[in-house]
């Protein structure tokens, strides 16, 4: 009987730690970069292949288009700073990673992301997050993961509150 209790105790601690992590740092998102060249890390030429939610050791893929993958990847890499739509559009436009996206495959898959489209893309990203949360049985509000932050003026800034894992997949894989 005490072995049973110990097993329950261990599992309880794991579940409580997972809950604490979730509350403090947000869910884990795993970003797959394809066409990676061994010895490098997140260099221009790689492709944002897929983005998944990781929960209880399982992965739940976010249903994202190319533009949404690029935007979420950008928000993930700059998640320490809330940014306005203008800043996000400018950052993506000037990013060598986005400019040469997928170039290592020989085919560049770029998307122009206009400042005026950011608000709509943020809505779609939240919808995709909600789909993955529901599939994972995880009741999180996407607006608390992809957060809109008010400023002193009427500008809204966006910030991703999540832990990010980047997995690199080489052409040989």
């Amino acid at each position, binding site marked *: *009987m*005490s072995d*049973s*209790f110990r*097993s*329950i*105790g261990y*599992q*309880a601690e*794991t*579940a*409580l730690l*997972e*809950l*604490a992590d*979730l*509350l*403090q*740092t*947000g869910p884990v998102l795993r970003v797959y970069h394809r066409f990676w060249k061994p010895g490098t890390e997140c260099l221009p030429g790689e492709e944002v292949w897929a983005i998944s939610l990781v929960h*209880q050791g399982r992965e739940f893929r976010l249903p994202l288009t190319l533009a949404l993958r690029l935007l979420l990847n950008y928000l993930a890499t700059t998640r320490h700073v809330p940014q306005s739509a203008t800043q996000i559009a400018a950052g993506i436009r000037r990013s060598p990673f986005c400019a040469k996206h997928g170039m290592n495959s020989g085919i560049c898959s770029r998307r122009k992301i206009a400042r005026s489209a950011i608000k709509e893309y943020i809505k779609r990203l939240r919808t995709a997050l909600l789909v993955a949360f529901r*599939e*994972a*049985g*995880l*009741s*999180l*509000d996407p607006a*608390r993961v992809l957060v809109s932050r008010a400023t002193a003026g009427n500008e809204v800034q966006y910030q991703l*509150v999540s832990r990010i894992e980047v997995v690199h997949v080489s052409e040989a894989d």
Partner: protein
Amino acid sequence: MEADWHMAAILLANFDEEFRDRLAAFLRVERHSVHVALEPAPLSQLLRRATVDLLIVDVSHRENYVRDLLADLGAHRAKRGPRPSVLGVSRVYRGPRFALDLERKGLRLIYV
């Protein structure tokens, strides 16, 4: 995301009396704050008394009650965030379909 620093509160539900009392005593020794549900009650009633971080529920019996509990829990967490987590304990092997079904509802299943 909110910071959270307090002794974890665990609620035990749907257990038979002897197992429940011994498990509660064990978890208290492990420095958790443990509440027990004396009889099967709706989730809203179970969560009324305290903020619960983890719900441990016996899924070996009263399957319909467990499913109702998980359905209510989904609605509760949609409104109030991810707390509580749920751990299902079963003393009877019910097969992979049963386990997968419960895991998809956000329950972590353990056989004892």
